[in-house]
């Protein structure tokens, strides 16, 4: 039998008695543990966790509840008597090491046991920092034989690979990861979340496929796709011819504009020939991929994203050409502008220094400078047009990607629990005052705001939110660097 340490209470010491708000028994002996309060000097915590003798955990009897049975009183240095008053428990008397504790120095805290079911309470900062509450939690778990604290499942990520460029492959890998996490997860909340997510995905996918068939089936969609590709190519041709003329009243450099326009038109002509050649292959691919769609809505969206990529490949090529030209022009312009002021890049000291130039170098440099400066507006117009087209495509793909992300990481079971107000989602604890009584507090759990609850119950295989660094993107756009798909 463990010897309980004797803790004395000086004149101004306080005792905190933790008692369940809804006791399992109407009366009887109370069993629990007494510990000194580590946060305050000269205070004691009395945790009442059980109403029956438990040989395994050896909680000592420390008082009575609604009875007068003081037989075990002499065995324990602490003895608390509690009675019911106005539907709530109340401390009648308390004895610590043979000394009566006046009622003004005894505080009763009534706790709600149901917060044990919550898995996200342990991650709360206030809970973790409070030693009393942690002790209470661990003692309650001991008495209910719940078991050791659940350990964190490690965060898994998808490995880098060249196949990740296809969104369908990415989504397949994500699904495999989720399946594995579901099988190996021990936390009930997380596994239910994963299962529900996969089921919802399947259900929504099924609905969409029904709608898809009502549109006419695979052949119809194929026809629509190829038709739209042709329409896009024709519109692009009109656009380039418009640029070669006098767009929006801007007077562009005629020879340069003609050269660029003819180059892009030739590329477009090659693209149209290419589309005609691969038409049968594309139809087979679409037919096969439409069966992939049965696996879930996220796969359908991934498929749509991939189709958009394939259909806008020439757009991407034009954008790359225009960006490279513009980037080189800007770079050359900066360099010759520095030459105008007699400065040069010094690689030894990584800074701009005065440079030694001879007169012929200066003449050639100035020729290049004025040419680039006066050709810049034309290149800028082409760059802006193709940049805008590319941004439209990226915007579409970004939207699809974020929708897929929502499907992949939305904890729908947690959402349901949050709406119903279940204690499994208790995120925080509060102390409430009982009206009409002093020295009695209620320890109740509350649920966190929706976003916080969902953030804390994310499954371990959820991908990161695809965030965009707008300042960096704007910088890249202005200085002629390529924007990689985000």
């Amino acid at each position, binding site marked *: 039998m463990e010897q309980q340490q004797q803790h004395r209470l000086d004149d101004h010491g306080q005792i905190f008695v933790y008692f369940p708000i809804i006791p399992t028994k109407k009366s009887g002996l109370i069993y629990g543990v007494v510990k000194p309060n580590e946060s305050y000097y000269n205070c004691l915590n009395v945790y009442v966790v059980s109403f029956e003798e438990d040989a395994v955990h050896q909680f000592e009897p420390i008082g009575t509840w609604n009875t007068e049975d003081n037989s075990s009183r002499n065995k324990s240095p602490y003895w608390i008597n509690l009675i019911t008053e106005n539907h709530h428990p109340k401390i009648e008397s308390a004895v610590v090491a043979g000394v009566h504790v006046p009622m003004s120095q005894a505080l009763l805290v009534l706790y709600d046991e149901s917060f044990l079911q919550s898995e996200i309470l342990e991650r709360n900062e206030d809970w973790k920092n409070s030693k009393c509450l942690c002790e209470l939690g661990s003692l309650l778990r001991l008495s209910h034989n719940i078991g050791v604290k659940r350990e964190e499942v490690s965060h898994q990520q998808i490995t880098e690979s060249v196949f990740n460029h296809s969104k369908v492959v990415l989504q397949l890998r994500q699904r495999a990861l989720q399946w594995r996490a579901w099988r190996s997860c021990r936390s009930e909340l997380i596994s239910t979340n994963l299962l529900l997510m996969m089921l919802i995905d399947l259900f929504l996918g099924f609905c969409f496929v029904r709608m898809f068939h009502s549109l006419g089936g695979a052949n119809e969609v194929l026809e629509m796709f190829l038709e739209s590709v042709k329409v896009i190519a024709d519109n692009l041709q009109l656009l380039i011819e418009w640029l070669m003329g006098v767009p929006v009243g801007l*007077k*562009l*450099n*005629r*020879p340069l504009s003609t050269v660029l326009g003819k180059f892009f038109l030739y590329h477009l002509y090659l693209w149209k020939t290419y589309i005609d050649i691969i038409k049968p292959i594309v139809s087979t691919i679409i037919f096969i991929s439409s069966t992939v769609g049965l696996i879930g809505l996220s796969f359908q969206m991934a498929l749509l994203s991939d189709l958009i990529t394939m259909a806008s490949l020439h757009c991407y090529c034009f954008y790359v050409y225009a960006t490279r030209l513009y980037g080189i022009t800007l770079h050359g312009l900066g360099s010759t502008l520095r*030459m*105008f*002021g*007699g400065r040069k890049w010094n690689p030894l000291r990584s800074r701009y220094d005065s440079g030694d*130039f001879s*007169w*012929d170098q*200066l*003449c*050639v*440099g*100035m*020729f290049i*400078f*004025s*040419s680039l400066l*006066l*050709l810049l507006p034309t290149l800028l117009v082409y760059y802006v047009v193709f940049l805008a087209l590319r941004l439209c495509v990226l915007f579409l793909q970004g939207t699809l990607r974020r929708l897929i992300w929502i499907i992949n990481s939305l904890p729908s079971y947690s959402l349901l629990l949050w709406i119903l107000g279940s204690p499994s989602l208790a995120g925080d604890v509060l102390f409430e005052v009982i009206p009409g009584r002093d020295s009695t507090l209620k320890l109740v759990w509350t649920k966190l705001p929706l976003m916080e609850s969902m953030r804390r119950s994310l499954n371990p295989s959820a991908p990161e939110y695809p965030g965009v660094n707008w300042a960096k993107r704007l910088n890249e756009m202005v200085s002629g660097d390529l924007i990689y798909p985000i």
Partner: protein
Amino acid sequence: MGEHVTPLEVKWEKVLFKKSSFPDNYTDPKFLDEIKRNVHFKPIDTRTALLKSTRISTQISVTVIFWAVFLQLKDGSAIWEVTYGIFSFIIIVAYVVSFRFNNILPVLKNVFLFIAVGYGCTPVLKTLTDTISTDSIYAMSVILMLVHIAFHQYGMDGVCVSPYVSLNAAICGAICLASRLQETRHAFALLTLAVQAFALFPKLYEVLNYTIIAFTILTAGAFCCMISISVVSAILFLLSIFCVNLIFPLCFVWAQQYKNNIYGPWDEAMIFNR
């Protein structure tokens, strides 16, 4: 009758190792004896000032000749060949006179390379400024030529002197003007003239020790060109040469009497590298 017995009988000395009865922040009237005025000042006499200001007018004349040739080319008159020929002739004569034979081979190679590349690249020039209005081009060229004259190195260093900026500005101005001409060979001729006038000539001028002969010949030539364009421009040109050569140096020499730089032991220490 109060005889003033000054309590401070002791003379104030500028030493720190003696105990003195003066407070630490006492300023003695003897302090200002250590003042020195205009230590590094070398006054310039009128003759030097007038002579040296001819350098600036030479450069102005060269620029004016260049501009005159451009106007003649634009008008389509055949006079430009005369002006161009005379100018090139002067340059060659100056080259011969300066006996720079030892250095001539790399310069010749540069010149031929330049001619070849320039003739090939000039067609690009023609369409560069099609979309810009003539007035804007003229304004830009004038500003660039002014920058060229302002930043030119006239034989001494200063805040505003940068030989690179001046040459670059002149070449940019020449390119702007050349892009306005109709025929390719005219543009090429103007560009070669620009290189001669702004890149080769200043070096020659410096080697020849800024002779007065060059000044007289070039000023006379510029005046003739201006007369062939209009009387007003000739008068303006004469007025500006007069100002730059006579009035401004005389003002400068007259203003030297007001120079009053104060030096003293209170100055910051300057570190020299000898």
